[in-house]
C-alpha cells in the first residue's frame, strides 16, 4: 500500500503548495483594474475592426474608461451599444449616425470598356499602376477585389468586374476606404436615399466613350434634386446633409448614374 501512498502524498502536497501560492498571488499581487473596463468590453461587438480608431475593442474600452474617449465611436455597435456604454460610464448618450460604405462607380464590365488585357497580380493598386489601369475610364473601379479582401465582415462582393457593398452587412469600419487606389469608396449615411454612382472628372463626351453609366456633367440633377446635388466641375455630387429628394433626379438622369439606394 505504501508503494502508491507516498507518491500520492508528495504530488498532492506539491499541488497544494502551488495552489496556495497562486491564491496568494491572485489576491495580493494582482493588478488593479477598473472593473468597468471588463464590463464595457463585454458590451462591444468584439469584431476588432479598428473602425473606432483604436487597436481593437479592448483598447477602445480602456480608452473610454481611463481616457474619457467618446462612447459613440464604434460604427459596428450602433445606437444600442452607445446607450449601454453610456449607462455603464454614467454619461449622456451621444448621437450616432449610422453609416455604410458606398462604391461610387457603376462601371461594371457590361457597362464600361476595358482598355487592355491586364495580366498580372490580381490587386487593384497593382493594376492601377500598370499603364494607368485596365479600365478605359481613368477613375473607374478596376474590380480586382482589394476592397473585398480587407472587409472584415465580407460585405463587399465583386460581380461583373464591379465592387458593390451590401449595406445590410457593412459595419462602416472604414477599412475599405484606403484599400481602393482610386478613392472610390466613401462612408455615407445609411439612411441616405440619393447617390451618384460615378467619380469621373472627365467631360461628358469622354465619359460617354468609355462608360454607359457615367456622369456626363449635364447638371439636370441639380435643379431636380432641389439643391441636394451640386456640380464639382463635370461631376455631380450629393450633399448628404441636405434633404434628399431623389425620384425626379433618378428618373431623369441621362447618364443613368443616380440611384436611390447604394
Amino acid at each position, binding site marked *: 500500500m505504501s508503494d502508491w501512498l507516498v507518491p500520492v502524498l508528495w504530488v498532492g502536497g506539491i499541488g497544494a503548495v502551488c495552489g496556495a501560492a497562486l491564491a496568494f498571488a491572485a489576491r495580493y499581487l494582482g493588478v488593479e483594474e477598473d472593473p468597468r473596463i471588463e464590463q464595457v468590453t463585454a458590451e462591444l461587438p468584439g469584431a476588432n475592426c479598428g473602425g473606432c480608431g483604436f487597436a481593437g475593442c479592448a483598447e477602445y474600452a480602456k480608452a473610454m474608461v481611463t481616457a474619457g474617449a467618446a462612447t459613440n465611436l464604434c460604427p459596428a455597435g450602433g445606437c444600442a451599444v452607445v446607450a449601454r456604454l453610456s449607462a455603464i460610464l454614467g454619461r449622456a448618450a451621444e448621437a450616432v449616425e449610422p453609416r455604410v460604405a458606398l462604391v461610387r462607380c457603376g462601371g461594371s464590365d457590361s457597362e464600361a470598356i476595358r*482598355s*487592355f*488585357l491586364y*495580366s*498580372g*497580380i490580381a*490587386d487593384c*493598386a*497593382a493594376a492601377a*499602376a*500598370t*499603364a*494607368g489601369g*485596365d479600365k478605359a475610364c481613368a477613375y473607374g473601379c478596376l474590380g480586382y477585389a482589394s476592397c473585398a479582401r480587407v472587409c472584415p465582415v465580407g460585405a463587399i462582393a465583386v460581380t461583373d468586374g464591379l465592387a458593390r457593398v451590401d449595406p445590410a452587412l457593412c459595419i462602416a469600419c472604414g477599412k475599405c476606404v484606403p484599400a481602393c487606389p482610386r478613392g472610390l469608396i466613401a462612408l455615407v449615411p445609411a439612411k441616405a436615399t440619393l447617390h451618384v454612382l460615378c467619380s469621373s472628372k472627365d467631360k461628358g463626351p469622354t465619359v460617354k466613350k468609355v462608360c454607359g453609366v457615367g456622369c456626363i456633367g449635364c447638371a439636370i440633377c441639380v435643379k431636380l434634386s432641389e439643391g441636394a446635388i451640386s456640380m464639382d466641375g463635370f461631376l455631380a455630387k450629393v450633399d448628404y446633409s441636405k434633404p434628399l429628394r431623389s425620384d425626379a433626379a433618378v428618373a431623369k438622369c441621362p447618364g443613368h448614374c443616380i440611384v436611390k439606394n447604394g
Partner: protein
Amino acid sequence: MKTLPSLFRFRGGIHPAYNKDATCGSEIRTLAVPSSLVISLAQHLGAPAVPIVKAGDTVAGGQRLADPAGLISAPVHAPTSGKVVRIEPAPTPLGRPAPAITFEPDGQDRWDSPLEPLPEWRAIEPRILAERVGAAGVVGMGGAGFPTQVKLSPPSDKPIDTLIINGAECEPYLTGDHRLMVERAADLWEGAAIIRHILGAGTVRVAIEDNKPDAIAALAAAIPSGLENAGVCVLKTSYPQGSEKQQIFSVTGRTVPAGGLPMDVGCVVENIGTTLAVRDAVVQGRPLVWRAITVSGDAVAAPANLLAPIGTPFAALVEACGGARGRVAKIVSGGPMMGFAQASLDVAMTKTSSGLLLLSAARVSVFTSQPCISCGRCLDACPMRLMPSELSQCIEADDIEAAERYNVLDCFECGSCAFVCPARRPLVQHMRRAKAILVARRRAAPPRPKPETR
C-alpha cells in the same frame, strides 16, 4: 591596344534570343517629320520642364520650349520649325499623363538654335562644357533619362578615373545603338573624348557585347590617334550586360556598393545615343531633339531603325515601317525585358524611347501564376544576388519590412527572375510594388542614420 577582352563576368543573368536580325544589318533611316508632334515636358528623371512658350507661338527648330524645373530636370527644345498648338496633359509611354506641348511642324524646317558650335572644345573649361550639355537638354538615352549634366558633374570627393561608353544594347530586338556604332564611329569617339575631358578621367572604354562584331571592328578602327588610353572592351553577351553596375564589373572588376552609384568606384557609364548627343551639343550646338529608335517585332511589316524627332506619335513610326502585319497582340515601348506595354499607338515617343515593338499573339504569353515552388532558378539568374522567391512571397504577404531587409531596393527590375520562373510568377510586379511603397514611406519619413558601431 584597340580591343581588349573583358576579364570579369557578372554573376547571374540570362540569354534570351536576340531577335535582332530584322534590323541590325540596315542603315538608320531618317523619318520625314510627321504632321503633328506631342512633345512631353516630362522626358527625363526629375521634375517636368516648365513651358516658356504658349499656344499660338511660332518657333524655329532648336529653339527652347521649356526650362528645367530645379536641379534634377532638363530643358526641352523644338525638333523642327512650327507652331505650338496647345499645352495640356498627354499620355506618355510610362502610362501616367504628363504636361505636353502639341506641336504642328510647318514643313520648312527652319533652324535657330541658341547654342553656338564649339569645335575647339579642348580649350574650353570642363564646367562650361557640362553646362552646354545641360542647356542642350541631353539626358540618359538608354532609358532612365537622368539629366546628363548632373552625371557629368560629380562632387569633388568622387574622382572619376574610368569612362565607360555603354554599347552593350542587351535588350532583344533593339539595334539602334548597334547601328550608331557602325555608322557614326568617329563621332562617337569624339563624344567620348569630350566627356572624358569634362570628367578628367584617365581611361575610356567602349563596352560592346560580342554579338556585334561589326560594331567592334568599326569602333576599333576609328579610335583617334591622339586619344590616349582608349579602347574597345569586348563583353560576353549576356542579359543584363547593359545595366551599368553589371557593366562596370565586367569592364573593371569593381563592385558598386549597395545603394551606391558608379561614381563611388570612380566610374561613369554613358549610353551610345547620349554620347553622340553630347558630341552634337558641343561641336554643332545642336540640342537633343531627334533620336534613333528601333521599330521591330513580328507584327510590323518592315522593321527598321528610324531617326525620328521627339514627339513623333507611335502610330506614325508604325506607318513609316509599312504598318502593322496581322493582328497586334502587344505593343511595347522599349525592349521586351524592361519596356512598357502600351494600351494604344496614340502615344508619342520621348528622348528615352529606344524601341517600339509590335508583337503578334505567337510572341506573347498570358500566364496564370502559381505559388512559388522554391526551385531556386531566380536566385541563379538575379544579377544583383537577391532572392526573388523569398522577396515575392514576403511582398505577397504584405511583409514589406522583410522585403526591405532582403534588399528589394537593390532590384533594378531587369526581369531575369521572371524570365526563368517555372511557376510564371509576376516577380517584377511584386518588386515594383514593394519599392513604390518603400519609396513613399521614405519620402514621408526619412530613415534615421545608422548608429555608430564599434
